[in-house]
C-alpha cells in the first residue's frame, strides 16, 4: 500500500468497475479499442514529463509542440515537396531545438521552468497558427512505411489497436529501465531530490536537465505526428490544453510535483485513469459542457486520496 503507484492502481480498478457497472458499453471491445487509440498520444508525452518532473522541472509547451511538429512536417511536404521521411525528421529536429532552448534558458540563465515553458507555449502555438494561417492541413494518407509505423492498425479478436500502442509500450519499458535501473535514473532522481548534493557528487545536473527537456519535446512532437497520421489531419490547434492533462496524469500516478520521486508505472496507470474518466463520464451521460467540472473534481479527489494514503503510510 505504501507505493504511490499501487494506490493509483487500486483507484483505477475502482473507476473501471464503477464505469463498467454504470454503462455496459464501457468495457465493450469497441470502446476499449477507442480508449487505446487515444491513450498513447498523451501517454507518450507523459513519459517524458515524468522524467522531467522527477528531475524537478516541468514543461508547459508540450501541447503546442504536439500541434507544431506535424504541421511543420506537412507544410514541408506540401509546399516544399520534401520527402515525407525527411519532413518528419525535420519536424523532430525542430522539437530538439525547442527542448534545447527551454533547457538552456532554465538551467543556464536560471529562470523557472514554469515561466520559460509558458512563454515557449505561446511562441510555438503562435508559430503553428501563423504558418498555417489558422487552417488545418491535410495529413499524409498514402499508405506506406511511415503511415504503418506511426498510425497503422491491427485487429486482435474484436479489438482494433494502433501501432502507437506499441510505441507507448516500448517507450514505457525504456523509461522504466532508465528511471529505475540505469545510472541515469539515479542521477535524475538525485537532481530532483537535492540538486546541490548531486552537483557536489559530480553529477552534470544541467546537462541532464537539458536532455530531458529535449526528450520531452521530441516525445510531444512524435505524439503529435502519430495523432495527425491517425486522423489524417494536422491542425495548428491540436494539443491545446494537453500540457495540463499530461501533468495531471503524471501526478495522479504518484510522481511528486516537487521532484525527486517519480514512477513510470504510476504514470501509465495515471494515463489510463484519465483516459477512462474522460471516456467514462461521456458514456454515463454527463452533459458535454459540464464534463470538465467532473474531470477536475475526480482528479482532485484522487490527489486528496493519494495524500491521505501517503500520510498514513508515513505514520505507520
Amino acid at each position: 500500500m505504501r507505493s504511490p503507484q499501487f494506490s493509483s492502481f487500486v483507484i483505477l480498478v475502482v473507476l473501471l468497475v464503477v464505469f463498467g457497472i454504470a454503462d455496459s458499453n464501457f468495457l465493450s471491445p469497441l470502446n476499449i479499442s477507442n480508449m487505446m487509440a487515444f491513450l498513447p498520444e498523451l501517454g507518450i508525452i507523459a513519459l517524458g514529463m515524468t522524467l522531467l518532473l522527477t528531475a524537478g522541472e516541468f514543461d508547459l509547451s508540450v501541447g503546442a509542440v504536439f500541434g507544431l511538429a506535424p504541421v511543420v512536417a506537412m507544410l514541408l511536404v506540401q509546399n516544399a515537396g520534401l520527402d515525407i521521411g525527411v519532413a518528419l525528421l525535420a519536424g523532430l529536429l525542430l522539437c530538439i531545438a525547442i527542448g534545447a532552448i527551454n533547457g538552456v534558458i532554465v538551467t543556464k540563465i536560471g529562470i523557472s521552468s514554469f515561466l520559460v515553458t509558458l512563454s515557449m507555449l505561446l511562441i510555438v502555438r503562435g508559430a503553428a497558427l501563423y504558418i498555417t494561417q489558422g487552417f488545418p492541413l491535410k495529413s499524409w494518407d498514402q499508405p506506406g512505411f511511415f503511415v504503418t509505423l506511426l498510425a497503422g492498425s491491427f485487429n486482435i479478436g474484436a479489438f482494433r489497436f494502433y501501432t502507437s500502442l506499441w510505441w507507448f509500450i516500448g517507450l514505457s519499458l525504456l523509461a522504466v529501465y532508465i528511471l529505475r535501473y540505469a545510472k541515469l535514473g539515479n542521477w535524475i532522481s538525485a537532481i530532483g531530490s537535492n540538486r546541490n548534493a548531486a552537483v557536489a557528487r559530480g553529477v552534470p545536473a544541467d546537462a541532464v536537465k537539458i536532455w530531458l527537456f529535449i526528450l520531452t519535446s521530441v516525445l510531444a512532437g512524435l505524439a503529435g505526428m502519430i495523432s495527425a497520421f491517425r486522423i489524417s489531419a494536422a491542425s495548428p490547434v491540436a494539443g491545446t490544453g494537453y500540457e495540463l492533462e499530461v501533468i495531471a496524469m503524471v501526478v495522479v500516478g504518484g510522481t511528486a510535483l516537487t521532484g525527486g520521486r517519480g514512477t513510470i508505472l504510476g504514470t501509465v496507470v495515471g494515463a489510463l485513469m484519465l483516459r477512462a474518466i474522460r471516456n467514462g463520464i461521456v458514456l454515463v451521460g454527463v452533459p458535454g459542457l459540464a464534463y470538465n467540472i467532473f474531470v477536475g473534481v475526480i482528479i482532485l479527489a484522487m490527489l486528496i486520496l493519494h495524500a491521505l494514503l501517503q500520510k498514513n503510510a508515513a505514520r505507520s
Partner: protein
Amino acid sequence: MQEVLRLQNLQKSFGSVRALKKASLTLKEGEVVALLGDNGAGKSTLIKAISGVFPIDRGDIYVRGEKVSIRTTREAMDLGIETIHQDTSLAPDLSIARNLFLGREPVNLKWLGVFAPLDRAKLRNAASELLKRVGISKKLDADALVSTLSGGERQSIAISRAMQFAAKVIILDEPTNNLGVEETHGVLRFVKEMREAGHSVLLITHNIHHVFEVADRIIVMRRGEIVAEQTVADTDLLTVESLITGADLSALMKRAQ
C-alpha cells in the same frame, strides 16, 4: 608526517569584494585541522575553492606535492578531496545505498555510458558492508530512504561515504549544525576515526569546544585572511576566541580581574 594538501596564496574576489586574500595553509597526513572564523571570514570561500565549487582567481594548490588545478567538484573528488557540506550532501528521496554511490555508481555493461544498468547486488552489498564498518548496520538498512533518517544518521552516511572513497582530504563544513548532543558526539567520534584511518580532515565549525576535543591544529581566518595558526596543545579557548573576534579577550579578562 607527509604533506597532503598545500594551498599557496589563494585569492578569490566576487566583484569588488575580496573574499579571499592570499590564503596559505598545509595539511598533513592523519591530521585534523580546524578552520575557525566569524561569519564572512572567508572559510566558506576557501573550502569551496578547494572542493571545486568555483575556480580560484590566483594562487596554487598542491596535492601530495604535485601542483593541481581544481575547476569542478568532480576534479576535486578525483584528486581525493571529499567535501561534506552542511545539510546538503544527500538526496533525501534516494536510498542510503544509492546516495553512497551517487556519481560513482557501480554498473554492468559500462559501454552503455549513462544508460548502463546499476549493479544492484554490488550496490547493496557494498553499502551494507560500509554501514557495518562504520557501526551503524544494526539500525540502518541500505535500502532505506535517506528522508527517513535523523540528522545525525545523515551526517554519518555522508562521512562514511567520504571515508569509503579513501579520500586523502575530507572537508567537513559545520558537520554538527542542527544535531542533538548524542549525534554530535557520534560525528566527533567519526572525525577521530578518520584521523586514525590516515585521512586528513579540515573541520569548519563555530563550536570551539569541539575543536579542542578533536583537532590537532587550529587555523583562524578573519576578513579573508589567515591570521593565526596554532597547535591545540599550545593554546587555550580564550586565546582562540580573541583571535577569531580580533579583540584581545585575555587582556580584557586580566584587566577585569
